[in-house]
């Protein structure tokens, strides 16, 4: 168990070791900032992918949500989120200082920026699932609470204690190197709560229970978004070492192989079913592979990384069918990709731990982490969205759904040349 705890604390060590002004520290900072930039670039990937999978009349709205997730989320995380997540964690459940970080050391600044990008990623997962029928204001309010409260609290359990103390999950040896659960499952469980409160888009499911596909408007954007996310993930996983060392090679190799296997998992399933291999599903399969390896990318051998990614891809198909059966409308498949694959990846990180495969004790610890994160995040976000719906409004009016949220929320059109219809009134929008 000591070995596991030490591995889990890998994340924290650089903060202590590289706070001085040496060439090594400078190199670590450069690597971390490069990784932060790559993770920031993931926002572009999410925006392209989610917007491409939505109808043309909502393209701007989806872009705006992703854009504002970064802007609003970064400020909120700096104000309160960082302190809650990484501040002195005496209870194991939340940090209690380092809020409004102003007078800070160079390394602290680098670390805060990198973690801010992670926080923005968690929140932005919801926007895709809840696309095309969510009020902009309600979405942003909820997004602010996710970035400022829900995500940092979970983060403090697994990664907390950078400025003293330790998170309770970290103390029992929970492994989530770059956030299969801490980032991706948290975002997905929030999204699940969001789509339950929202309800499906008009006509998505017929009265007889048939699922009506609503194709996205631009699959080229979806593919480009997938590539950008893939690229950004090298920063997401590779940067989580927090230092420029030789481990990055294995981490990035595992990341890449798992993404490839995820896409192939989807493809193989469809081939066996004798069905068409869809671009959207294939892209989601590779992202599920990336999510699935995020927890164990530093502690797994490449073969097991491939298995993790492959199963992640299969979960995309199975998870989407499961949600459809429950008549839950997840526009981009965020919940199977980030939630189900995140759970699997977290468990796999324990199961396929290099040199100590199938250790029961570790698998139990991983299960405790997965279960406790769901049991906190899902009810909390359900309450959050319910309160937002009650006091601010969350579901867009059916007239807005008809006209498209680009016009009704932003008084703009993504494709003015090709979209006939309503007159834009910038005062009334």
């Amino acid at each position, binding site marked *: 168990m000591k070995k596991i705890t030490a591995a889990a604390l890998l994340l924290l060590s650089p903060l202590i070791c590289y706070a001085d002004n040496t060439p090594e520290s400078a190199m670590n900072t450069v690597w971390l900032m490069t990784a932060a930039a790559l993770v920031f670039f993931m926002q572009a990937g999410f925006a392209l992918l989610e917007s491409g999978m939505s*109808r043309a*009349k909502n393209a701007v709205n989806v872009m705006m949500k992703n854009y504002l997730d970064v802007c609003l989320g970064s400020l909120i995380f700096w104000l309160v989120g960082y302190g809650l997540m990484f501040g002195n964690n005496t209870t194991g459940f939340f940090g209690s200082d380092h809020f409004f970080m102003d007078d800070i050391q160079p390394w602290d600044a680098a670390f805060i920026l990198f973690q801010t990008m992670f926080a923005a990623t968690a929140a932005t997962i919801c926007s895709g699932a809840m696309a095309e029928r969510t009020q902009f204001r309600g979405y942003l309010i909820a997004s602010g609470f996710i970035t400022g409260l829900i995500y940092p609290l979970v983060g403090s359990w697994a990664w907390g204690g950078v400025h003293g103390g330790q998170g309770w999950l970290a103390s029992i040896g929970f492994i989530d190197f770059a956030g299969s659960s801490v980032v991706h499952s948290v975002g997905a469980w929030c999204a699940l709560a969001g789509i339950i409160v929202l309800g499906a*888009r*008009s*006509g*998505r499911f*017929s*009265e007889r229970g048939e699922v*009506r*596909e*609503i*194709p996205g408007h631009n699959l080229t954007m979806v593919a480009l978004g997938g590539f950008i996310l893939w690229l950004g993930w090298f920063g997401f996983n590779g940067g989580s070492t927090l230092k420029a060392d030789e481990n990055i090679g294995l981490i990035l190799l595992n990341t890449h192989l798992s993404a490839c296997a995820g896409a192939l998992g989807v493809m193989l399933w469809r081939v066996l079913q004798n069905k068409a291999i869809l671009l959207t599903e294939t892209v989601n399969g590779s992202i599920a592979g990336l999510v699935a390896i995020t927890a164990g990318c530093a502690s797994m051998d490449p073969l097991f990384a491939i298995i993790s990614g492959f199963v992640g891809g299969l979960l995309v198909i199975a998870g989407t069918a499961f949600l459809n059966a429950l008549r839950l409308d997840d526009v981009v498949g965020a919940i199977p990709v980030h939630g189900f694959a995140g759970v699997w990846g977290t468990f796999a990180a324990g199961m396929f731990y290099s040199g100590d495969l199938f250790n029961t004790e570790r698998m139990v610890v991983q299960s405790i982490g997965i279960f406790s994160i769901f049991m906190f995040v899902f009810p909390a976000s359900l309450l959050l969205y319910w309160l937002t719906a009650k006091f601010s409004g969350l579901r867009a009016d*059916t*007239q807005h759904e*008809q*006209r498209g949220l680009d016009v009704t929320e932003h008084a703009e059109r993504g494709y003015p040349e090709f979209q*006939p*219809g*309503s*007159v834009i009134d910038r005062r009334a929008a």
Partner: protein
Amino acid sequence: MDLTTRRRAVFTVLSDYVHDDSLWQAMGQWEASCSAQGQFELNKFLASCSGIDAIAKNRTAIYRQMIVLLMAPDNQRLKPDPLREMEQYKKQGFSSVKLSRSQSFTPQDVQCRPAFAVLLGELMDAVRSDTQQRLQRYLQDQMLSLQLGQDVRRGLAEWLEIRGAFPPLALDLLSMRKLINTVYIGLCESLGPVQADQILNAAAAKAMAQHANAGLLL
């Protein structure tokens, strides 16, 4: 059978014969004297409404139709619950009726009505007859919640039934938008959102070719 279903059954039949104040007076009478009694006490209720001409003249037919609806195994043919309107009538009485009749319309409201007639017609014509019937039922069910005047509801219902020339309805722009949206949602539910968007876009293009201001209705 629960109170709501009975109220809907009574309202479904009565609203075909009596309108405006008379309808709400009759519904008020039913609620006060008969709602808690068995369904076969309806004769007494109809007798108590003998002051309303349309009920007195059609008492047997109304009674028979009410019994059929009350005995029906399902409530698919029933109109939506009129409770809200009944309460509104109780609170505001004649003033609400007067208000809706004397509502003033802007020149834009009036100018948009021909475009509305074209757009609604195009939307209804774009679908098969079975979908048309489903849409018609959906629209009629939703009309109560749109807070349209009784005369507008009646006029629209008749037009949906018979079609032909569009009646001169006193509609404002907001109500026209709501009605178009209701048809759109009906299309989404019946055919799915993809087809609904395609039909709406095609209908809008045709309406805009004839009336440049049709875009205001979307």
